[in-house]
């Protein structure tokens, strides 16, 4: 098992109290698995990604454990985490377009970064060049400043850089949202290729765009309001979703090629609860078309068939529908 997350709970400290951005997240990502992580903005998917790699105030670690390749990941200790960052766990951030220092040549910055991480530069550079070839960047970009690259080129550069040390887990955070459709596809294919070539052992692709996940993900994890709603193989999630939220989400999926804003999905009436004082019980209850009296209690995240988990009383109860 590449990544094993148990009961991870992360809050944001604010003036008005803790925002319960992520509660009781329990899931795993297998070796070689590309797991999609989807949900509306503010559902906690970016919190999860940041919490795994760079947990710093105002984000606060409450409890839980994270294991990477059967080793404890000290996410709460930012100094000890440095040993894992880049080498074992890495991220292609949402802001990939601005992620490179604007006043350093890209090659120079890379070398300085590698040196600072005590990586042997001489033996790494040929691999860097091979990977640039792979993503279709000429070696000349190493002698250029970020401003000389297009947005797409910068993003590919960041992808190459983030995965240069063959991390076990790569998280790709909303990396397709700023791109046009054809580039989106190319970037998505590149992620698969990185996995196939074992540059990364496993991948977490965070997005609000289910159609991308449909193309590349092996499994999909759906989140709602800081909690896990459903996880299963891509096929099961897309074709036979069990959680009412997932169903509505799939039903509201835009037609192929149509982009939509990263706002509330219009297909589902109502809006997610504020996570400062989240409601007790199932957080989707307010908007759920099929709410039961039991929903006043927190539904457990249970496996209803092999590899398919759902947090819904309708599914875990004895009278589950097929």
């Amino acid at each position, binding site marked *: 098992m590449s990544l094993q997350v148990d009961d991870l709970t992360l809050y944001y400290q604010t003036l008005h109290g803790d925002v319960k951005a992520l509660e009781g997240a329990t899931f795993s990502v297998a070796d070689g698995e590309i797991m999609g992580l989807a949900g509306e903005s503010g559902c906690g998917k970016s919190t999860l990604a940041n919490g795994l*790699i*760079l947990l710093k105030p105002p984000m606060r670690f409450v409890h839980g454990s994270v294991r990477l390749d059967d080793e404890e990941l000290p996410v709460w200790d930012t100094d000890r*985490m*440095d*040993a*894992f*960052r*880049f*080498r074992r766990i*890495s*991220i292609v*951030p949402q*802001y990939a377009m*601005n*992620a*490179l*220092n*604007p*006043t*350093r*040549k890209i090659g120079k910055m890379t070398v*300085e*970064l590698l040196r*600072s*991480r005590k990586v042997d530069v001489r033996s790494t550079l040929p691999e860097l060049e091979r990977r640039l070839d792979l993503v279709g960047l000429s070696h000349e970009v190493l002698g*250029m*400043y970020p*401003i*000389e690259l297009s947005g797409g080129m910068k993003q590919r550069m*960041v992808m190459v*850089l*983030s995965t240069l040390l063959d991390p076990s887990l790569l998280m790709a955070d909303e990396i397709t949202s700023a791109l046009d459709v054809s580039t989106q596809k190319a970037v998505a294919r590149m992620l698969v290729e990185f996995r196939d070539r074992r540059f990364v052992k496993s991948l977490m692709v965070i997005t609000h765009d289910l159609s991308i996940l449909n193309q590349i993900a092996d499994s999909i994890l759906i989140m709602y309001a800081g909690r896990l709603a459903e996880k299963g193989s891509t096929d099961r999630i897309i074709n036979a979703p069990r959680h009412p939220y997932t169903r509505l989400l799939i039903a509201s999926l835009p037609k192929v090629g149509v982009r939509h804003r990263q706002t509330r999905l219009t297909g589902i009436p109502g809006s997610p609860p504020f996570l400062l004082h989240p409601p007790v019980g199932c957080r989707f209850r307010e908007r759920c078309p099929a709410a039961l009296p039991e929903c006043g209690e927190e539904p457990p995240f249970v496996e209803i068939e092999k590899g398919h988990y759902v947090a819904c009383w309708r599914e875990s109860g004895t009278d589950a529908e097929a």
Partner: protein
Amino acid sequence: MSKYFRRKLFIYVLTFFLAVTIDWLIPRFMPGNPIQVLIARANLKAESAKVVYSYYMRAFGLDVPIWNQYANFWNALFHGDFGTSLWLFPQPVIKIILRAVPYDILLLLPAILLSWFAGNKFGAFAARSKWLDNTVSPLGYVLTATPYMWLGMLLAWTFGIVLRVLPFSGAYSYALMPTLSWIFIWSLLEHWILPFVSLFMVMFGGWAIGMRNMIIYELEADYSHYLETLGAPRRLIRRYAFRNALLPQITGLALQLGVIVAGALVTEIVFSYPGIGYLILQAIQNHDYFLLQGCFLFVIIGVLLANLAIDVTYVLVDPRTRTGMQGER
């Protein structure tokens, strides 16, 4: 890049043109007859007043049509003719000014450069932790809020009067003649310290505060964040942030030049340091308007040259301007 420079040069040429025009306009279009005012202020006897009046009329060239006057003004300018001083009659203005310029360079260049470097280092240091920021930054705020002349007065009084360790008037001892001797150089240095320190300290505070604010923004920038997620050591991230924060500080230097000039001016007055600032005061007090005009033009030229030097530096250090992109300045 050449487009960047062409634009800059165009602005500077235009500025110079405008400044000269203002310089020409002011005495002509101020309320009342400036020459009458000049003579009234000079408290001359009736017959000498007449002589001075006709001298002024001829000197300003007021007896020819207005456009002619303007053309003559430019013509004289290009021949280095700034008129004749009244205060040090009959020395030409240009000679008096050229005598003062070395003192300005001696005072300003080291003060500006050293305070810029030291202030930036110090500001970056202050931004290291909340604790340092709270203890060290207030010093920067106090310094940058201090009026130049007041700090000058405090220093002159403390070191010149109370402690009696440093001279605080003139550029060298009145007992000496300018020669290339160690005694003279020592005297020059002694007299230079206090005005230098007072200029240095006020500017230092400004740069420190500026850097402190800039670097905090840079440390929050996306590229800093990305390096953090890659586990880069704090040292590398700080180094990048410092370098990037220096760029707006270079621009800041250009923006601050006007204030710096004003500061140098009053500092020279406090210490009777014989630079252009001191000349301006003498010109005002002695109603020597040719000298005043000349000083004004020299200050403009100095500021324009400094701006040009800053632009060149900026292009050298910011890759974004070099790679053909429009630099933000």
